[in-house]
């Protein structure tokens, strides 16, 4: 195992971490703000992939799909927000689990009706459908693009949350929604904006992942558990937690796969159990 092996696997780990980050950041911020466990978040990821494939097939334009698909998913998210999510905010976590679980089932079968049971693929755009050689390795350009995309979003979210007024409002509302409301923040509108933003990121993750992974009807359920693990390991509702969690899981799964293949199926679960036993609130809890 030489340096190029480590570099390659580092890039693989980064690429996976960034996808996990795009998914988990929406879930964790929605939870942190609204105390809402949205299990259907992963279904929106699936919709992102399928809409991306359809738009791309209809127009032949990958980048159009890349922009349109998150927008469509956001619209669906907005509809869900007004029909269900908003109503369920005070209904208690058990009911939220039940409703969003129901949504998973509904969206799953709607996707089956719309796109069929056969797995679909999406080609990477021509500009990125090659490999890039550097430092003695060659690596798919599209994967480098995903790493760059994830890092960009990660850093801009950091800046927005830490430096801007809306970031301060979000942080205040995570700390104490009542207090935030009394300071004149329109909490309801803020929730809606954040929820839509989370949906857009889920859709973006879906369409971004489609050229690497095929789109299948089970992709939502399969990604749900790793995403929840990221969110929980990091600590619910915390941006830093989602970053730490997705990096930990991305690196653990990638290096576990090549260094400890016989254990790789359970490594994540072992880590999850150990972290929760030692730090029952996750690594970087949002509050307290």
């Amino acid at each position: 195992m030489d340096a190029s092996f480590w570099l390659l696997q580092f890039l693989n780990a980064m690429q996976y971490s960034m996808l996990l980050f795009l998914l988990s950041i929406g879930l964790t911020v929605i939870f942190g703000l609204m105390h809402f466990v949205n299990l259907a978040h992963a279904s929106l990821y699936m919709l992102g992939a399928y809409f991306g494939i359809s738009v791309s097939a209809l127009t032949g334009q990958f980048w159009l799909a890349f922009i349109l698909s998150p927008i469509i998913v956001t619209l669906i998210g907005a509809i869900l927000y007004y029909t269900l999510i908003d109503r369920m905010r005070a209904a208690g976590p058990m009911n939220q689990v039940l409703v969003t679980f129901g949504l998973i089932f509904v969206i799953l079968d709607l996707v089956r009706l719309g796109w069929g049971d056969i797995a679909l693929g999406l080609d990477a755009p021509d500009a990125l459908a090659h490999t890039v050689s550097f430092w003695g390795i060659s690596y798919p350009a599209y994967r480098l693009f995903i790493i760059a995309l994830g890092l960009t979003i990660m850093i801009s979210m950091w800046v927005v949350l830490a430096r801007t007024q809306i970031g301060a409002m979000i942080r205040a509302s995570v700390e104490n929604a009542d207090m935030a409301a009394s300071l004149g923040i329109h909490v309801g509108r803020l929730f809606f904006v954040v929820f839509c933003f989370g949906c857009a990121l889920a859709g973006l993750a879906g369409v971004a992942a489609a050229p690497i992974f095929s789109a299948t009807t089970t992709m939502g359920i399969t990604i749900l558990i790793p995403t929840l693990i990221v969110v929980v390991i990091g600590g619910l509702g915390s941006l830093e937690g989602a970053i730490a969690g997705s990096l930990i899981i991305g690196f653990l799964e990638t290096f576990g796969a090549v260094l400890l293949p016989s254990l790789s199926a359970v490594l994540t679960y072992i880590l999850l159990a150990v972290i929760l036993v030692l730090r029952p609130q996750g690594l970087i809890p949002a509050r307290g």
Partner: protein
Amino acid sequence: MKSLFAKMAMATSLGLGMISVQLPAHADTKVGLILPYTGTYAALGNAITDGFNMAIEEAGRTDEFSIVTEDTEAKPPVGLAKARKLVLQDKVDVMVGVVSSGVLGAMRDFVHQSQTPLIVANAGNNLATGENCSPYIVRVSFSNGQINRPMGTWMAENGIKTVYTLAPDYSAGHQMIESFSAAFTAAGGEIAGSDFTPFGQTKDFGPYLTNAQSSGADAIFVFYAGGGAINFVKQYGSFDIKTPLYGSGFLTSPLYVAAEGDAAIGVRASLHYIPTLDTPENKAFVDAFMAKHGTMPSEYSVQGYDAGLALMAAVDAGGADKKNIAAALPNVSYVGPRGALEIDPATNNIVQNIYVYDTVMGDDGLTQKLIDTIPSVRDDVAGCQM
């Protein structure tokens, strides 16, 4: 929706049955299709059903067979419950189907004890026609060993010295790779390395691909199916891996090859059926299938089709009831889209050609180019006692 139509079809045929009391008519054979229609394997269940129905319809014998469909959801306990229902409540004469080996394992003892003939149209577990064989279980699809052993020998004979293998970490994956490796090393090859990827969880093969390439092996041999196959082939392509890719033919099945795109070009694989076989039987089958469904048939639709042919042949040879079908099935032989087929009475597994093929770009997209045929591949009698 499928089963709604099936119900209507059943109701119609029952009505005909009642009329037929006054008429000297065919004996009615009741067939239970036991396949996944929801969950991971839904696409396979539908493909097999299409093939089976086509065989019966082409023969013009739809009145003779009444069909009950049940969804196994790829869950062994559900499969067993549905098998019990078909046999004990619907009183079917014969069952056709079973996609996953887990479901077959769950049903096996019940099928054996209830003496209901079962025509396996997919599940490839070696043990089902080996150690756990039964006079009532006949397989017209393939066994995991049957597809991969010939490829092991063939690759060694064609100058490949070292191979790195990859497959999902579950029973079928292990069986496929083991039979390949055994044949490959017996013919003088060497396994450079081997990874089993976590079943159902692995989406990113990047780490494994880079590992396989750096092993310096002459070739990579893999078994992946369904969504896993698409991911694997696409990622193989995107990493621009120079080591040639070989695999069990499910890797580039016609069902998935379109989604794999250009990355599939040049992948070499072995399978018991490819739709480009140049035989009159296959041409007729492909044309009929294209006319009906507008897509190329896959090995799964052929398995369903051949299950239908085998069933009709058994009914013709013996009779339409449970006992006669069970007795006749192991001796069935006919020529189908796959070529000449027979059931080996020693194991009840099918004896068939295995085709080595390349995926190439044809006039209307990706297609299969036959490279070599290994004729009449027969499984050893590995511990099967009827």
